[in-house]
């Protein structure tokens, strides 16, 4: 199945809203770190329901936020959820961004980067569209150190990139981005039941759930265009 087919289905099933709710727990903390100034143009890559772009507009008074997604249905849903005329959507693929060189101040991406067919090429595309000094905030829950995420590949037909922390930094640098920061952003909001509730349907042991959410959390890597 293609990205378009797979995620059009997700959008039709309303999974965009479920992701928004779960991802917000950590995404909001990473979004709050972004050095967006009034008047900046921000790109949300793999925007899903578009919640991150809307939050950026509300918080920073960015002059425009564009959500790019490979699934037309995702962008249609996102547009439906959006009142703000300064927020727009584009159907496009991570591998060949339809934006001019140096045209974007900051790029955000949550739980989407690893779907890129060629992640190295996608990083080069990001470095190309960013203006000098622009940042790429790349947030992922699917990564090597998060062993709990490894099984996700079995549920999806698209091949996912599973890098570890070091590979993220190295790939950013190979694409010409400086690495400014790497961090695990914990999810402190998901409810972790008391020990006697375990095993649950999803978790054998409480310690595993604590490790997954409170310690590993979301891996954030921040790149800066030279």
């Amino acid at each position, binding site marked *: 199945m*293609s*990205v*378009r087919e797979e995620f059009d289905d997700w959008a039709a099933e309303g999974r965009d809203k479920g992701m928004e709710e779960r991802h917000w727990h950590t995404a909001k903390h990473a979004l709050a770190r972004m050095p967006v100034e009034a008047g900046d*143009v921000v790109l949300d890559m793999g925007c899903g329901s578009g919640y991150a772009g809307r939050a950026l507009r509300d918080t920073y008074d960015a002059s*425009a936020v*564009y959500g790019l997604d*490979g699934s*037309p249905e995702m*962008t*249609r849903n996102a*547009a439906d959820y959006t009142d703000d*005329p300064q927020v*727009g*959507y*584009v*159907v*496009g*693929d991570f*591998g*060949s*961004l*339809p*934006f*001019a*060189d140096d*045209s*974007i101040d900051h790029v955000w991406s949550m739980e989407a980067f690893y779907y890129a067919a060629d992640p190295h090429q996608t990083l080069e595309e990001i470095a190309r569209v960013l203006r000098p000094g622009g940042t790429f905030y790349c947030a992922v829950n699917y990564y090597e150190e998060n062993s709990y995420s490894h099984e996700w590949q079995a549920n999806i037909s698209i091949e996912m990139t599973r890098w570890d922390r070091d590979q993220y930094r190295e790939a950013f640098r190979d694409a010409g981005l400086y690495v400014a920061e790497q961090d695990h952003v914990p999810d402190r909001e998901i409810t972790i039941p008391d020990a006697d509730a375990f095993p649950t349907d999803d978790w054998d042991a409480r310690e595993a759930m604590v490790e997954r959410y409170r310690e590993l959390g979301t891996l954030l890597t921040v790149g800066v265009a030279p």
Partner: protein
Amino acid sequence: MKESLLEILCCPLDKHDLELEDAEYDDAGEEIVAGTLVCSECGERYPIEDGIPNLLPPDMREETPA
């Protein structure tokens, strides 16, 4: 989509400028709701559907069934 988006959009294949054809605007005249974006270099045509430009590379774009 707003016309201002055109300032930064480009052809995903060769990164050249796009030209707007057959544009239809909303009642306020602020949003382009339909039309076609045409690459000034390679001539590739990209549809605007429900106000959202589809700039997938042509081999990844499939026509939405009617």
